[in-house]
């Protein structure tokens, strides 16, 4: 089975955001595999271990993405494709077109992706990708079972669990709870540097200027107003509780 995993490198979730000339500064930032994509990688490896197959990572982004790709290869993925030509970068509309163009050049049975990128992502790319490829998708998976060409997925629908079935090829997006991603082993890390990583440029893909132009204009990026430190109420508990209840009722009018 040919399993593809769409993988994005994102800011570590602990990172502070600093703006420079209206853009989010990247210097000195720690990057990680997008946490949801890490679930997708882990799931791909588990399916491969059970059914045999090949796991290929597909990424579109700057050269720094190689670090995330090497980590996923060290976890056990077999090879990777990286579109690191800046002509390919863009909004969700464009990225999904680029991923589709890369993916349609190769064999695939199952495509795993994250349901959302935790940086500037918006939970669109994987679903758009399925539509671009003309195949079905199941989003927000918390459990995936593959039998022959049939898949059964538990999906998280705002806390309810839906059991959804379908037939390969398809896109499945990972939600928290799908699995516990493994750490790369020492052998894995050593092997990773020898695994194939193919670079793709705009010349390798059939994309129109329209596809690459995107649909969204970012007009402004700004930080939220810093919150003023609040009031810590102190004193006798009975008084404190009364003071808080009064404040919420009378001053804030939220109760």
């Amino acid at each position, binding site marked *: 089975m040919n399993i593809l995993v769409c993988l994005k490198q994102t800011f570590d979730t602990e990172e502070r955001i600093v703006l420079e000339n209206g853009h989010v500064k990247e210097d000195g930032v720690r990057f990680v595999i997008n946490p949801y994509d890490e679930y997708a990688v882990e799931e791909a490896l588990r399916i491969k271990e059970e059914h045999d197959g090949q796991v290929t990572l597909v990424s579109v982004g700057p050269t720094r993405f190689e670090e995330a790709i090497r980590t996923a290869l060290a976890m056990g993925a077999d090879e990777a494709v990286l579109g690191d030509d800046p002509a390919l970068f863009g909004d969700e509309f464009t990225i999904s077109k680029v991923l589709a163009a890369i993916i349609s050049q190769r064999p695939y049975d199952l495509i795993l992706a994250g349901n959302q990128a935790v940086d500037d992502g918006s939970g669109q790319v994987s679903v758009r990708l399925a539509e671009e490829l003309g195949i079905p998708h199941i989003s927000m998976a918390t459990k995936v079972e593959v039998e022959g060409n049939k898949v059964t997925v538990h999906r998280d629908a*705002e806390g309810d669990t839906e*059991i959804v079935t379908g037939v390969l090829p398809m896109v499945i997006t990972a939600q928290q709870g799908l699995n516990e991603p493994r750490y790369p082993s020492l052998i894995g890390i050593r092997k990773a540097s020898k695994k194939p990583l193919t670079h793709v440029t705009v010349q390798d893909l059939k994309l129109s200027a329209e596809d690459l132009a995107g649909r969204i204009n970012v007009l402004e*990026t700004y930080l939220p107003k810093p*919150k003023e*430190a609040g009031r810590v*109420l102190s004193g006798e508990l009975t008084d404190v509780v009364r003071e808080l209840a009064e404040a919420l009722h009378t001053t804030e009018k939220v109760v």
Partner: protein
Amino acid sequence: MAKVLVVADMRRGKLRNVTFEMLGAASAIANGDAVAITLLGKNVAGLAKDLGDFGADAVYVVDAPELENYNSGTYRKALLTVIDQFNPGVLLLAHSAIGRDLAPMVAARLGAGQVSDITSFEGTGENLTFVRSIYAGKAFTKVSVKQGLAIATVRPNNLTLPAGGVGKPGTVQNVSVSFEPADLATLVKEIMAKANQGVDLTEAKVVVAGGRGVKDASGFTLLEQLADVLGGAVGSSRGACDAGYCDYSLQIGQTGKVVTPDLYIACGISGAIQHLAGMSNSKVIVAINKDPEAPIFQMSDYGIVGDLLEVVPRLTEEFKKILV
């Protein structure tokens, strides 16, 4: 000016508040042009009257057995059919389980730009801009859609709820859609309803959230009692879910739900950045924590340093007195 179509958001057969919030936004965005709303589901025609007088010129109803439960393929087809009939310039959906799945499908099919999880908007027509948070709420961007249909998914509890009574109850248009096997490429076999049946967490005006400091599942009963008195919902940190004190459906944060209540009471939650991502836009934040150094106090409007097992029941009693 732009024609605006709203996709009604429903849960367990009821219209959610965000539906009305979207209708309010739609009237402002349309700025005199037509506003329509669509109801997709089975036996939903009756809900058209509940949409009341909130500014829709037309209510497009697609009522079909294939739409009983959310299904990517059938909902996609139903919505594309309505879009084809009404031809909107702006399409609004809720950033809910359904909207998050449906919007990007339709965006891809129509080659449209989509802005996800918006918290506000400005302007109309060509000058329409949306605001959304990025990097888990640590920054915001203001964006616009360059050309063609503009799609936005709307975060509940952020846009102003309109008062209604604008003299436009909307004429009902029944739309029939015939579904083919290709629309049923995936099938929902079973739904296990786990989420609490009470107040909807993402729409609640008051959220009482518990963390690892709640100690065990029975500690959550204290939070439920407080939430009940305030007409609110109970939420949690991931710490509490991981520890098995409550179900993951309650989790608030980067990998859980994003909530924007009027009042958020964090009990025994340290205030990790990933948790703040889900609640930092709450209007008033209260923290109850026994550690005066807990980072949650930096984010709070009011804080009580103390044992939540002692504070929460007292607070419940106090509110009971005030709210009689």
